[in-house]
């Protein structure tokens, strides 16, 4: 009984270490390929359109309602201390430092990260990746690096849009519905938000872009057999990316606070 348990623990640990090692190798090799053969600019633009432009609607919608909820909740809390004028600061700092990058990343993970895994996974099971290799072409140049570069560019841009729309969502509720002074809303915000806040949001969204493309491509590249393998890879990709985004967010916040 004990030996069975020990064998199980040993096997699981080995599998975990192997998986982490393979993921690390995948990221390192992707970085090497970005430096050497980043792929064609047209491919990168196509991916920016797919990851970035096509996520705009969902980002607008999420940002507007997040900003509006922050406006409501912030007003409710600040009104208790008679500090409704600080609403703009509360909304902006929450969005720029935290919610903007994280919610943008989670939305893009659901929309584009899953699609990246499914696309590469289907190419894997239908031997299209093998076909590239038999032509002596590196699949990373065509499948991985354009997506990684595109995500690194698109995520900060989407995050900036998220922050802006969210701030106006908060303004709509705070100023137009609840009667907060419009001058105070923007003046207090301008006074409190410093470059470091914007910079930390940028660093977060940039690194979240790397995580989304990395895990999305990795899970697709090593997808299992058949439709079930792709479906499992897609689910694992979304779950792992979301968890990593939140863990990495905590780490970055603690470093950049």
């Amino acid at each position, binding site marked *: 009984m004990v030996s069975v348990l020990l064998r199980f623990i040993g096997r699981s640990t080995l599998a975990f270490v192997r998986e982490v090692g393979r993921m690390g190798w995948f990221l390192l090799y992707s970085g090497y390929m970005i430096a050497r053969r980043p792929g064609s600019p047209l491919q990168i633009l196509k991916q920016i359109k797919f990851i970035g432009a096509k996520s705009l609607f969902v980002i607008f919608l999420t940002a507007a309602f997040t900003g509006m909820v922050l406006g409501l909740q912030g007003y409710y809390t600040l009104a208790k201390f008679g500090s409704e004028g600080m609403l703009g600061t509360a909304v902006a700092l929450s969005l720029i430092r935290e919610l903007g990058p994280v919610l943008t990343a989670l939305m893009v993970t659901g929309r584009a990260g899953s699609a990246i895994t499914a696309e590469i996974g289907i190419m894997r099971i239908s*031997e*299209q990746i093998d076909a590239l290799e*038999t032509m002596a*072409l590196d699949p990373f140049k065509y499948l991985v690096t354009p997506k990684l570069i595109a995500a690194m560019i698109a995520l900060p841009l989407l995050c900036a849009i998220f922050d802006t729309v969210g701030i106006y969502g908060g303004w709509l509720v705070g100023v137009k519905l609840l009667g907060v002074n419009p001058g105070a809303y923007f003046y207090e915000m301008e006074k409190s938000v410093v470059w470091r806040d914007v910079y930390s949001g940028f660093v977060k969204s940039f690194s979240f872009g790397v995580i989304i493309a990395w895990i999305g491509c990795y899970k697709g590249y090593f997808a299992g057999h058949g439709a079930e393998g792709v479906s499992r890879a897609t689910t694992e990709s979304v779950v792992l990316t979301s968890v990593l985004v939140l863990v990495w967010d905590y780490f970055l916040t603690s470093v950049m606070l």
Partner: protein
Amino acid sequence: MIRMTNVHKSFGDQKVLNGLNLEIPAGDITAVIGPSGEGKSVLLKHIIGLMKPDSGRIEVDGESILDIRRSQLNRIREKFGMLFQNAALFDSMTVFENVAFPLQEKTRLPKEEIEQRVRSALEDVGLKNVNGKYPDELSGGMKKRVGLARALLLNPKIILFDEPTTGLDPIIKRAIHQLIKETHQKFGFTAVIVSHEIPEIFDIAQNVAMLFRGEILQIGTSEEIRNSGHPVVRQFISGSLDGPIQLV
């Protein structure tokens, strides 16, 4: 020449290649036959380095393809073309883009010449007016022919065919076999064909190797294998249910 020496490969507890030895002579068509699930496709993937053996040696023209850098492996792969079982066409590209892809990526030919060579390659495999179609708009036979055109385009020295006619009707099957024979005569490449097409394969291949239980049971000329006295080979060729090959 391709040489596989004492190649072993297992997936978990399942031994697929079990000390396999095989020599494929240059310039000939060699067919690999054997019951389903015996590792014929695995064998092909080992030859081109898509899979690595657990142990053993694999050489192409005297060069080992194992334990070498990726760039060296790619240099050896330049000699190969491969037609996959399901053609493995890029599904987001049209027929034209699929066939042109290796030329665009591996040569600096002008656009007009690429267009001309792709058109001619497609005509060679009997396809016209399909340039703008996507793979999912093609029949199985057409996909295989597009795959063949793509495999032939860079004039490879060695072409690997993984069940090129499985699932096709008898006429298309014959057309594909004819095409392989004609293109082989025209270009003189070394061909390795994994196939279940008995007895048609004996008319195409010069050499036939029988894979059974992870080993090459017998190899010889088509005539030798066709008239083999080995009970396993005889049962496989005749398709008999009685004999040493058990279904389960």
